């Protein structure tokens, strides 16, 4: 997936959105939309770390929506930084 870049938005690298207690990305490598969190290659089911999924399932739909917005903002910032670079 070299030309796609890869997503390093792992939950370990996330801060908390103070207002809503939702993780937001702080720093990462290349990030782009449509990629699973924390992975950089096609996966088999056995390779998927269920921790992120369990965490996401523990959120309410409103919190998931907020998380999606936070990551979209982060993607936008990353794209902008790449354009400037």
């Amino acid at each position, binding site marked *: 997936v070299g030309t796609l870049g890869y997503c390093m938005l792992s939950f370990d690298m996330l801060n908390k959105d103070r207002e809503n207690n939702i993780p937001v990305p702080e720093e990462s490598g290349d990030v782009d939309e*449509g990629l699973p969190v924390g992975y950089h290659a096609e996966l088999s089911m056995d390779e998927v770390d269920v921790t992120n999924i369990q965490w996401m399932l523990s959120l309410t739909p409103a919190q998931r929506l907020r998380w999606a917005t936070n990551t979209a903002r982060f993607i936008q910032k990353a794209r902008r930084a790449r354009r400037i670079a």
Partner: protein
Amino acid sequence: VLDESPDFEPILRTLHDHGVEFIVVGGLAGTLQGVPVTTADVDVVHKRNSENVERLVSALRAINAYYWEHTRRRLEPEARTLLLPGHHLLATDFGRLDVLGQIGEQLGYDDLTARSEILEIGHGLTVRVLDLRTLREIKAKLGRPKDNMVLAVIDRTIEEIERLKGSAEPHKPEQA
């Protein structure tokens, strides 16, 4: 357009408050159901009849939607074209919104309603989202590298949801 900071909630709320019949599809449909996948926009499939399209046009005006790919002049979505099955890639005051007449193998709103679930987001906002099995099926058929990367994560999420529910119907992933 890309300088607008994305905020997905007001986009969905505006569509909802204008009475638009739509289904959230794409990455956001996955995220709302617990799939940890990133997305940069909101994708919806709308019901393509004249009443709903009028409501949609009104909602899109409220968030100042326009086609972001048209750089020469600002082009706003119209009822005439929203009745067609094409894709409308829009910028809004709250970030990108793709309004899709059809997805996958020519599946429109009426084909997808039975394959969707209603999610209560809160504060009066409910949205219909494409179910995870259908989302997986469509991504598998698209076959792009980034879609293939997500398949196993969707499978694992479905498995985890079923484990939590104690479902009697185990998910059997198809080959991509």
